[in-house]
């Protein structure tokens, strides 16, 4: 059966259709779930897509984490279900406490709109399981607050536990340790600033994001066959 992916839609989210299209190309059945909903309709995986949830007021992701759907996302994550936060979705997951650290303004104080190279550093996450360790992927970034930061103890733990999943080859935003993506301890919750869905077809400049989305779907299949 086709993998069901819930794509969470907050007011201000703007990448949900791109994610849905990219997942459909891989044979999945995406469903957009509005933030006021309290369940995920039996999804096998969850994507929190990019945009400006709740206008990014106060801090990016600060309001979104209190949307009703986030309780369902947290429960799904606690059960081991694969959850991917992309760009603003990464910011939402850190605010929700599902991922460590925070994303602050880019060091250069500029909104960045570019395609950058990212190296796959760990394959123990739901988003990188199918990727080659060390592979360099060309992925678009579009963010103002993509500068990852955490305290030293957290950074040590991320390194020791192989939880830094993607690093920038050339750091565009000041991120600590060149971090472009991290996962939780179990590896099922992953956040990344670059947009894999915008690198889902050679026609739009790169298909390097496909392996990440395929990883998510394969991780979902593993979890649902287990459960």
């Amino acid at each position: 059966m086709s993998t069901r992916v819930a794509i969470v839609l907050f007011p201000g989210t703007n990448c949900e259709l791109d994610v849905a299209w990219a997942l459909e190309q891989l044979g999945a059945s995406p469903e957009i779930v509005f933030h006021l909903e309290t369940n995920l309709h039996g999804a096998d995986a969850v994507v929190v897509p990019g945009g400006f949830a709740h206008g990014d007021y106060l801090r990016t992701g600060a309001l979104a984490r209190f949307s009703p759907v986030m309780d369902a996302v947290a429960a799904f994550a606690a059960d081991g279900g694969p959850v991917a936060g992309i760009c603003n979705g990464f910011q939402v997951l850190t605010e929700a406490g599902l991922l460590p650290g925070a994303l602050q303004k880019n060091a250069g104080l500029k909104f960045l709109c570019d395609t950058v190279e990212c190296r796959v550093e760990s394959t123990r996450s739901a988003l990188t399981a199918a990727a080659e360790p060390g592979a360099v992927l060309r992925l678009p970034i579009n963010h103002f607050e993509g500068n990852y930061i955490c305290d030293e103890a957290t950074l040590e733990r991320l390194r020791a536990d192989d939880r830094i999943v993607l690093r920038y080859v050339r750091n565009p935003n000041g991120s600590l340790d060149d971090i472009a993506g991290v996962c939780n301890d179990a590896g099922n919750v992953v956040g990344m600033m670059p947009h894999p869905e915008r690198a889902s077809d050679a026609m739009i400049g790169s298909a390097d994001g496909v392996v990440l989305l395929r990883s998510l779907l394969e991780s979902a299949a593993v979890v649902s066959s287990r459960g």
Partner: protein
Amino acid sequence: MRYEARVDITHLPGVLDPQGATVQRSLPALGYGNVSDVRIGKTIRLVVDAPDQATARAQVDEMCHRFLANPVIEAFTIELQELAPTA
């Protein structure tokens, strides 16, 4: 009782403050070469109805921890002032 709370939110020491750094770099050009440690944060003002000041403060403190500030990157201070009762 009504209390006006003023919450000052700043970056934690050691956290990069790109806005503060940029402003600091621009000040010498205006002749202020003697300025250092520029930090840019935000202020949130709110009015709380509470039976007493301690209750109001505890509530604002909780709001800060849960929502108004992100303890990973931000510190906050709270100033509370009793407001005259409205007629």
